[in-house]
Structure formats: structure tokens, C-alpha cells
């Protein structure tokens, strides 16, 4: 039995798979951010809070309405997306003509307010949410919980479907056109403001979906989003702001890199992504998949 850098291959496969699972969360969150940034030019700092709201939504649906995980998987993102669209209609749309910074400040402020409200109501240590798919499969080199396998598959499906809709369908072409020349697209009789609202809702819904998926694996707590969002922003920057494919590939890729760091030098596992970000920004400032404007 050969060993690679002192780690038996079984352990290495296990860690790669775990990295992929974490990458699934990064990919879904960064995808939502990339869609919003790509089409609205807004840096959505509320994304972490919306991810948290998705998880809390699942908890509330279960505890107040008796709706189990599978129902929450559909309902919670819709509810959170609706709240997001209200925010877009009432607040964000007033800022489109201003600098990025204003959108960033508004969404950051909203994130703090939302987090504070949830903390006030539910405390900081979080709430329990039971695993809907207990048990797992022994793959020989590791024990793969059924739920984690489901997360990877679900997130891959969602990511690829999103990419396909935006890059390969007529609706997607309208969306992309509207970001380049909204006036021209409007002239063709397409309701651009409504399209933007729906796009924001979709991006937010993706965050909430990731939140629902996270609820059984991580603790449902008010700070779960702010802990994750910084990493996700790093993922988006590395992938290239606004690049859909970039967000997906870097999300999964960095999950794997982080997973490997956890084996070889665990102390650095919370910093490795930022080291990569710094290097990428020096070598290719537009990001790995981004195009310089």
C-alpha cells in the first residue's frame, strides 16, 4: 500500500469528497452572488443573511406549520425570494444609477439588521434541525452520509440548470442583453425592471436554498451566514465577478483545496482561500474566468 505525503490514499479520497461537499455550498452561494452581480451590478452583501433566513425558514416551517424538510426545500426559498424582491422594489432599485458602493452599504446594513433581529428572537447558539436522510453508505474509503451525497447532487443540478438557462436559452439571452443595454431591450417591448426584480429574487432564492440544505448539516444560527459570506465573496472574486461558470467551478474547486488543507495543515484551513484570492488578484485581477472590462 503506497502512501502519498504520509496520507493513505483512502483518507485522501475521503477528503476530496468532503471538499466537494463543502464546495457544493460555496458554488450555490457564489452562483447567486454572480447572477445578481452579473445582471444587476449590485454587490449583494445581504446574501449571507438570506442564506441564514433560508435555514431559519426551514426551521419555522417545521416548528410552526409542521412542514417537513422536503416541503421547506421548495417553500422556504420562495418565501425568502419574495422578501428579497420586496427589498429590490422598495430599496435597491433606487440605487442602480449610483456607484456600487451604495448598493454594498445598503445590503450590508440590511444584513446586520436581519441578523440582529434573528439573534434577538432566537439567541446566538442556534436551533436544532433533524437530518431528513439519516444513515449512509460505506464506500470502503469513507463513510458517506446519505444526506451529504444528496447535497452534492442537488447543488450540481441547480448549478448546471442555472448556467444552462442563462447561457443557452432565449430567456437567458434577454437577461444578458438587458445588462448590456437595458434601454435597447426595453425598446423591444421587454419589461426590464420586472426582469431585474425576478433575477434578484432568483439569486436570493438560491441563497435560501443553500440555507435549507445547510440546516440539517450545520447549526441553524443567526451568524451562520456572516461566517460563510466572506469566504463566498472570495470565491466570487477568484472566479471572476459576474461569471456564472466561474462561480460554479471555483466554488467546487476551492472546496476541494480547503478540504486538502484540513488534512495537511488544519490551522490554515480558514485562511487558505484568502491566500489564493491574493495570488489570483495579483496574477489575473479579473479573476480566473472573468474578462477585464
Amino acid at each position, binding site marked *: 500500500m503506497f502512501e502519498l505525503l504520509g496520507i493513505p490514499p*483512502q*483518507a485522501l479520497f*475521503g*477528503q476530496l469528497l*468532503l*471538499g466537494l*461537499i*463543502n464546495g457544493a455550498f460555496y458554488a450555490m452561494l457564489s452562483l447567486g452572488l454572480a447572477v445578481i452581480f452579473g445582471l444587476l451590478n449590485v454587490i449583494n452583501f445581504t446574501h449571507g443573511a438570506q442564506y441564514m433566513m433560508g435555514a431559519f425558514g426551514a426551521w419555522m416551517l417545521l416548528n410552526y406549520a409542521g412542514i417537513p424538510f422536503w416541503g421547506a426545500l421548495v417553500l422556504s426559498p420562495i418565501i425568502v425570494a419574495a422578501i428579497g424582491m420586496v427589498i429590490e422594489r422598495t430599496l435597491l432599485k433606487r440605487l442602480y444609477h449610483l456607484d456600487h458602493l451604495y448598493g454594498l452599504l445598503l445590503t450590508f446594513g440590511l444584513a446586520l439588521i436581519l441578523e*440582529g433581529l434573528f*439573534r434577538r428572537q432566537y*439567541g*446566538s*447558539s*442556534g*436551533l*436544532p434541525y*433533524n*437530518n431528513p436522510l*439519516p*444513515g*449512509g453508505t460505506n464506500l470502503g474509503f*469513507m*463513510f458517506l*452520509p446519505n*444526506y*451529504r451525497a444528496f447535497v452534492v447532487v442537488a447543488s450540481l443540478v441547480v448549478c448546471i440548470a442555472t448556467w444552462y438557462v442563462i447561457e443557452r436559452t432565449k430567456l437567458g439571452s434577454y437577461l444578458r442583453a438587458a445588462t448590456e443595454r437595458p434601454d435597447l431591450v426595453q425598446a423591444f417591448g421587454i419589461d426590464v425592471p420586472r426582469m431585474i426584480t425576478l433575477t434578484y429574487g432568483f439569486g436570493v432564492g438560491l441563497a435560501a436554498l443553500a440555507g435549507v440544505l445547510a440546516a*440539517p*448539516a*450545520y*447549526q441553524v*444560527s443567526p*451568524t*451562520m451566514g456572516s*461566517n*460563510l459570506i466572506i469566504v463566498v465573496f472570495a470565491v466570487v472574486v477568484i472566479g471572476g465577478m459576474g461569471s456564472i461558470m466561474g462561480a460554479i467551478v471555483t466554488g467546487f474547486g476551492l472546496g476541494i483545496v480547503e*478540504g486538502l488543507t*484540513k*488534512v495537511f495543515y*488544519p*490551522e490554515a*484551513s*480558514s*485562511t487558505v482561500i484568502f491566500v489564493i484570492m491574493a495570488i489570483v488578484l495579483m496574477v489575473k485581477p479579473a479573476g480566473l474566468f472573468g474578462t477585464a472590462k
Partner: protein
Amino acid sequence: MRLAAIFLAASSLMGAGAAYAQVPVKIGVLNDQSGLYADLGGQGSVWAAKKAVEDFGAAAKGLKVEVIFADHQNKADVGTSVARQWYDVDGVDAIFDTPNSGVALAVSGVTKEKNKVFINSGAASSDLTGKACTPNTVHWTYDTWALANGTGKAIVKTGGDTWFFLTADYAFGHALERDTEAVVLANGGKVAGKVRVPLNNADFSSFLLQAQSSKAKIIGLANAGGDTINSIKQAAEYGIVEGGQKLAGLLIFLTDVHSLGLKVAQGLNLTSAWYWDMTDANRKFADAFAAANGGKRPTMVQAGVYSGVTHYLKAVEALKSAKDGAAVVAEMKKIPTDDPLFGKGEVRADGRHIHPMFLFEVKKPSESKGPYDYYTLKATIPANEAFRPIGEGDCPLVKKG
């Protein structure tokens, strides 16, 4: 309006002038108000401090006590700058609670420099009364040595003799790992491996997998709060317990069990200095706490703040002044401790408050009568065995014989 003000002023003057001039005392509760340790201390600790002042009958005893609070955000620099501001500008005489060992060690240093009083309930590092001890610091509720001695020893003695540590990578985790490792080795056990995990990590699966492949019988969680919660939750997912390994949560608070739910937390062994459902006095305190804090039950940290404030006020009353911090702490060491929550005990020369510790097991969902009915008492560790012997801590205040 003006009449009311005159009455108010007159009545407070009458209260004050009764026997002697009032001694002003200002207490600052400095803890995490918004982050991962906010539930176990936070506003609950502020309430406990105020309640202690009220129950002590401070006003009738000639003390004019004011309680303020601040959020240290788990950052040592924020904690020390609040402490300096409080001591230098706001006239604070004593700081209480302060979870997070990193912040606590820093605040302890500032307190000594300014000759004030620091009574810690929330932090764990046994260094506070070990090599970092000062004449101005008292460590009230628990410490890493006591946790290791309680949970660690109990587990090794029941056959859990090989350990793998998941350690939070900062002062607290290191101290807890060190103290537990010493207990494991002293009782004939072995340490199969350890991994240092950055604070506030969400996903533990990689580390749990490493622990799993180490084949150690016990996975020791030298972490706290959200990190402990996520480790236990994910260990259940990866079938760690079904695989024959056991988890040892070395520091678990009541709020953590509440947050995990009994389904996941059942069967865990844990060491605690205090549990609300043990005596009538504790239940009475817990009822009052619940009424004021949205139905929550107090943690040992919050009870410790109550107990610590009570003893502190006794010392100030005896000295009739709160100004000389070292003198107040010396007085606290001189008079025996006695209050409804922690019972009789003492504050040792190194600043360690000595009292019994308790070994609990988390109940099964079927055994629990409802929220916060979580622990079954397994063993009481008597006060003289619960804490590190005074000669072994390397505290410079203790003369080696």
C-alpha cells in the same frame, strides 16, 4: 414633575443618610453580547449581576452599586480598550464574567496594571490562576483543569483510554487540550492524535474523518459553543458513535444542549459547576431568571456571575471601599464564600474559587419533562478534588514550600 423630583431626591438622601455615607461601587459586566458565547453569558450575566446586587441588599448596607455592561466581540483588543476606558474614565471598580480565554487573559493584565478587580466566570483557561495569576483576579466558576479532571477522568476510568482531540485553535482550546491530555496520561490512557481547528469553523467533517481513521476510542472536543454544537451534530451524521467511538464534550453549556436538542445530545457526559434543577435555591433563581429572560434557564456562567458579585460586595462592605482592587481581592480571599447558588467555599491564594463540581449525563428525549430539563447527576466531585492543587499551577503568588 418637580415635586416628584424633590421627593425622589429627599427619599434617596434619607436612605443614604441613615447610618453612614454611601460607598459607591461600579460593576462592569464585560462579555460577548452578540456572538457565539452570547447565550451562555450575554445579557443573562448582566441580569445576574443586577439580581445579586438587589438580593445582597446593597443599598441598606451602605453601598451604592451601579451595573453597566459592554460587548467585547470576542476580540482581545476590544476587551482591553473597554477595560481601560471603564477603569480610567468611567470609574468602574470591578469587571465581571468575560468569557473567551484570550480576552480574559488580556483584561486580567489591564486590571492588575490599574489595581482594580477582575472576577471571571465565563472563561475557561486554568492559566488565569496558574502562571498568569495576579493579585487582582479571581476565577469563579470553572476552569480547563476542573473540566479535564471531571469529564476526562470519568471517561478514562470507564475504559475510554485512547483519545483523539479536536481542539479550538486559541488559548482556551490549547489549555483544555493540555489539561485533559495530562489527565488521560496520568490515568494510564494514550493520545492517538490531535487536530487544531480554527475558531468558528462550520464544517467538521474533515476533522471527524481524521478522528475516525485514528481508531481512538474517545474523540475529545476541546472546543466550545457553536464549534462544539457543529462537531456533535456532524459526528452523528457520519455515524461516529455507531462506529463504536465515543464523543467527549469537554466544555458543554446548558445552552449548547438546548441548541443541539436531546435527540443528538443524549448520553453525553459533561462537567459543570452548577445546574439550575438541583436545589430549591437554584430553582428559585432559575425561575426569576426565566421570568426576566424570555423563559431561558441560567447557565453555570450566569449563576457564577451572581455568586461572584455577592462575594465581591461582601468584601467591599467589610472594607467600606472599593477603590483598592488588591485589597478587595485579599479580603475576598480572607472571608469564606457562602451564597445560595454555590454554597460554602473559599477563594484560594492563587485566586481560584473552590467549590464542588458535578458530572452530568444528558438525558434521553423520553426522560426529559420539557425544555431545559436536560441533565442527570452522575457524580459530585468534592471541592478539595475538583480543582488543580495550588502548588501545581506555577502561580507566582503562591510560595513554593
